């Protein structure tokens, strides 16, 4: 059998299929549909210090080969998360990542400080795409300095791996990734959603109450692959690649572009069993590419010279 595992720092992921933040709830919602122990890893919905109501509905709309969402980071906050969700995860093995969210650097620090003593947590994914209230709603991962500022605040607070989650809207995603590396991040995950708009012609209303939303799904895959490849060229950090992965083939394409592992988002929303199907497809396909392990495939893209 081929080796599908990969590592970020000291942390070993048994296989490359990690569930993406905000597209798999807190985890227990998926229990009726899949054996969570078969996953490569799981990343929670974004956790802010306080509970958040999120945006009014409608919050989702289907767009060509994808979807638009403006959930508005609804969440139960770090206290209820620790009391109500973390005990659930003690029954399952896969690496558990906390998607840390904030409106300002202090928010991120409060979440990491509050949760870090809990033994079930394996790593943090720092959602640098949240709107920052101090900078007029711009998200930190559009700017190398903001990215550095938040990650260097967090670095001394935990020994666990810190993964910086990047927005596709930075002027240069690879420069943001480099800034994250300099600030002590152990890995990067990309990409978060693209800002999008859908219009209802009849009412001339936006399809989402929030006006704008984030675009995800197969529509964004080529852009995501390009960014993964550029970041792979620029930094030595392991990459969790995502954006429109719906098949084992898609997964392996991200590995070829330089990802160590991947995240599955919209595909899980479409079908809660899709992540395990994608894993099966990838593990069946790998030997036919002449590879015994994912490592052999990683970053093996051969551009024309």
């Amino acid at each position: 059998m081929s080796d599908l595992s990969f590592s970020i720092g000291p942390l070993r992921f048994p296989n490359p299929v990690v569930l993406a933040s905000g597209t798999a709830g807190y985890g227990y919602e998926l229990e009726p549909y899949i054996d969570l122990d078969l996953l490569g890893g799981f990343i929670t919905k974004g956790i802010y210090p306080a509970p958040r109501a999120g945006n009014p509905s409608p919050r989702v709309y289907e767009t060509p080969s994808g979807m638009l969402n403006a959930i508005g980071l609804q969440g139960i906050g770090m206290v209820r998360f620790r009391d109500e969700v973390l005990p659930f995860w003690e029954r399952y093995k896969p690496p558990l990542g906390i998607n840390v969210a904030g409106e300002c650097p202090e928010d991120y620090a409060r979440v990491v400080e509050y949760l870090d003593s809990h033994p079930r947590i394996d790593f943090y994914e720092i959602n640098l795409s949240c709107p920052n209230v101090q900078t007029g709603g711009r998200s930190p991962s559009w700017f190398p300095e903001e990215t550095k500022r938040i990650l260097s605040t967090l670095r001394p607070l935990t020994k666990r791996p810190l993964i910086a989650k990047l927005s596709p809207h930075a002027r240069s995603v690879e420069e943001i990734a480099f800034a994250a590396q300099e600030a002590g991040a152990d890995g990067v995950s990309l990409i978060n959603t693209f800002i999008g708009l859908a219009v209802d012609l009849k009412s001339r209303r936006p399809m989402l109450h929030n006006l704008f939303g984030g675009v995800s799904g197969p529509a964004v895959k080529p852009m995501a692959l390009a960014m993964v490849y550029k970041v792979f060229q620029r930094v030595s950090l392991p990459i969790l690649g995502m954006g429109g992965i719906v098949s084992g083939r898609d997964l392996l394409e991200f590995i070829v572009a330089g990802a160590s592992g991947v995240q599955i988002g919209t595909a899980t929303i479409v079908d809660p069993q899709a992540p395990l199907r994608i894993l099966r497809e990838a593990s069946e396909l790998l030997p036919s590419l002449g590879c015994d392990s994912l490592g052999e495939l990683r970053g093996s893209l051969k551009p024309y010279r």
Partner: protein
Amino acid sequence: MTGNNFSSKMETMDKKGYTPLEIVGKREWREDFFSLFFHSPLLTSSLRSGHFLMVRDPDAPTLLSRPFSMGRLFHDEGVFELFFQVVGKGTESMARKRVGDTLSVLGPLGNPFPLEKPGRILLIAGGRGISPFLSALPVLAESKRDYSLLYGAKTARTLLFRPFLADFPVSYRTDDGSFGQRGLVVDGLSQEVDLVFACGPEKMLERVALFYKDLPTEVYLSLEERMGCGTGICYGCARKVRTDRGVEMVRVCEEGPVFEASRVVWDE
């Protein structure tokens, strides 16, 4: 040591998932209303009025599944009905399906109407909101309950299922008076009931909730919201509901779609 501890058997063991179901019957009503019939003894026996299903056409250009409540249940044949109105891409592609084609179906999802609660029951249906009551009526008749259905639509042409409904106590209303009494269902509400179950347009549900607000009648509404997953993971379907913690955004697919009317917060 290998991370590949994987077999496709473990993938679905004891777990619920999308199932491809063959269309065994199709009925074209009018005004863009359709019924599709599916053979599944398992679903037919486990579906309860108020449950919904997520439905996806694997051959369509659409990505996300769409939510539908089921219509009639034919227990002897193990067949259930989906009754729907064409309003967009997803329902259009469903309407083009033929007998022998398959659709992917996930369910039962959500929480059904608490039909077992004691007391006199009034069912209220507006337009395509008749769906969940097509399975509730035979259950209430069988258990010899004191019940009736108030069913309204714009016009007689869209007041569907009348032959089926002839076996049950139903009063009809149409906006234009072309069948039954003229007027809205909300003009025909009775105070003389203990339980109300309603499904239909948002405006109708809000007025039903308002009518019974200060009465001892317990009112349950089946609410709709645009959905992403239908399985509780995306938080796309949330709406304002009163909970122990105050007013919260609550998922229609997971905590609903049936809510106690007194808990629902209506936006101005």
